[in-house]
């Protein structure tokens, strides 16, 4: 349902969409029931001259059951949502699949820097490619990102991937994603970081293997032998 507003660009986007759908159905149901009952009661028990209100304490069993039943059913719905939420959370944030490639994402006031591993696919070597505000990755590849900040808190956010993680100075946070379609996607900074917070726009370019290899070759730092 979220895909109507924002396409699915990563392998876990669908999982998050499904969780959101489950929550929509369950909470939507309770919202509609509660609102319907509220409006129906306002209408049905509007004041009529000569008709007195009833004296109901709410302490008798037959009265309390109208509260206990919904209370218990909501508890069940909550448990269902908890289970699905933890499953999705575990999949995205705890259970990192093995990396096929690793990149560094560095936030600063007010731009994003990326370090990609270059043709040898090893970070920290001479052929690493460093860019500002444009990240290039290969489709259908599992990436680990090492997220850092050099100054204040930032947040690496790619809505179409359903990806979001705060960048903290003094720490490296690791996350993952696997792009599932090619194209160019917005990268946002989603944590207030000063007067330039609104201009930290960045691009995530997902390419086919061929396109990506060509891009890497043409962006490899000069003087490094390419294979």
């Amino acid at each position, binding site marked *: 349902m979220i895909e109507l507003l924002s396409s699915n660009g990563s392998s876990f986007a669908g999982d998050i969409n499904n969780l959101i759908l489950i*929550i929509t159905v369950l909470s939507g149901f309770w*919202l509609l029931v509660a609102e319907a009952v509220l*409006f129906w009661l306002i209408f049905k*028990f509007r004041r009529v001259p000569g008709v007195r209100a009833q*004296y109901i304490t*709410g302490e008798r069993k037959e009265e309390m059951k109208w509260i206990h039943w919904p209370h218990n059913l909501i508890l069940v719905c909550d448990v269902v949502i908890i289970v699905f939420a933890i499953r*999705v959370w575990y999949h995205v944030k*705890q259970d990192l699949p093995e990396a096929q490639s690793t990149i560094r994402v560095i936030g600063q006031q007010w731009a994003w820097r990326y370090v990609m591993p270059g043709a040898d696919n090893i970070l920290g070597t001479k052929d690493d490619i460093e860019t500002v505000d444009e990240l290039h990755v290969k489709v259908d590849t599992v990436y680990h990102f090492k997220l850092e900040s050099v100054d204040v808190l930032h947040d690496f956010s790619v809505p179409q991937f359903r990806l979001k993680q705060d960048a*903290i100075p003094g720490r490296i946070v690791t996350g993952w994603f696997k792009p599932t379609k090619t194209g160019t996607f917005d990268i946002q900074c989603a944590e207030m970081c000063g007067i330039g917070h*609104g201009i930290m726009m960045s691009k995530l370019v997902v390419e086919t293997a061929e396109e990506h290899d060509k891009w890497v070759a043409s962006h490899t730092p000069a003087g490094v032998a390419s294979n």
Partner: protein
Amino acid sequence: MATSHAEHHDHHEMSFWEKYIFPLDHKVIGMQYLFTGILMGVLGAYFSYVFRMQLAFPGTEVPLFGLVTSAQYNSLITNHGTIMIFWFAMPILVAAFGNYLIPLMIGADDMVFPRINRLSYQIFFISVLVLIASFLVHNGGFGGAWTAYPPLSAKAEYNLTPWGSILWLVAVVLEFVAFLLGGINFITTLMNSRARGMKMNDIPIVCWMIVLASILFMASAGPLIAGAAMLLFDQTIGTGFFDPARGGDPILWQHLFWFFGHPEVYVVFLPAMGIVAEVITTFSRKKLFAYKVVLFTTFATGILSFFVWAHHQFIAGIDPRLANIFTVTTLLISIPIAEMLFVYIATLYGGAIELTTAMLFALGFLATFLIGGVTGVFLGASGADIYFHDTYFVLAHFHYTFVPIAVIAVFAGLYYWFPKMFGRFMNETLGKIHFWGTMIGFNGIFMPLFFTGAAGDHRRIFDYSNFPELAVSSLQNLRTLATICVVITILFQFVFFWNFFYSMFKGKVCTEKNPWKANTLEWFAASPPPHGNFPVMPEVYRGPYEFSTPGRELDYWPQNEKA
């Protein structure tokens, strides 16, 4: 002992200064908080008008402000949030209604410590001055969001508002001190000064709620006060409590802040629920359904509220395993709250409902808060919060809780207690116009923002044209619709202000003590009550909601009427 206040006082004729500027009377102090809160609310609303105009028409001059720079935008949103929570919602819901109503509703002549009461307002007033000063200093007001996360908030080289940041924080600390002092008065007064015969279950719900809110505030504010001292030192003398380069931890601030921040939302929620309880029982002529359940769910919510805070930090870099614990507690807290709301709705069953303006606002609170509460589930579910965190979905959720709490329920209370406070009636027709304009306007602002948020609009952004996926006309139209509704909603508040201030002086006179035929003790003081409240102190014989008792001719049974 039913002696009078006058017998305990050696009253000389008080001067204007003694009565209204340095008052000791709880009712006058309550009014000071009310009017200060209303003024600050107007300021906060003005800020929202300015920044929403910038969002709808980016880069154009906003009438009554001018061009909005990105730095000004950040200060406007930061101070809008800060003002609305600390200088609008809390002063009106807790301090104004608490001060005005508690002694009256428990049959006392004043709060137990009138001089500390006066002192708390004075400290509060100073906090207002300090906050306003923060807007006027070099480089302007603080713009690091109301949550003030370091390192941004700690170092001027990052936030670029060296004085604004410090003054903002000092203002917040002063406000906290004022509310800690005020809270002690409320708690002690409710515990010790009830009229003879008023047992725990005879206390009106609004009194319970305001006192429980004060206790919640006291219990949660401590660690944040410690944190504020640490942040103040980081800002001014160069300590490194939150500086990773010096061994400090920015996430520590977040924990301290949200350990307070989550109970804080209940600090404002409970008084609003209290007001709604008083209004819906009176205008449906019904006993509150399951009074004890209301109390137990309130205690449960209060206690649980201390165990959910890190749901604000799912994405912050906390240990992912911790997120699982907090998602469980957060989703479970929805249960006592839902139960409280259902009990209120059940109170309407079998009623004889009169849709006065106060009742319309009270019912409007229920209808809109339900939406706010339900949309919180999307954020409490950790897996879904990955997507929704820091989007306008969050913003729409908390405005669907905060606006019902701080605006809609407050209007219900003001329309309801106006005859008691001022001895005159407000105009019902204008009241209804105000109600419909506010409700339709309010929904028009925030309903679209659920959608822009779900489409990816992130928060605290002054111009979406920089983001290709968000700079599309469908989303910009929704943003503009929200802004137009801000203007409409603000315009309808003029109807309220006219009604409120005109009626205060020229409204139809309320000669009776109990125009709404309610049961609680404030309706047995004169309208308005004199200093000392009751010529003869009342005694209590029953609970506060004995409406439509079978076998009685009248459909109400005042608490202080002998059997």
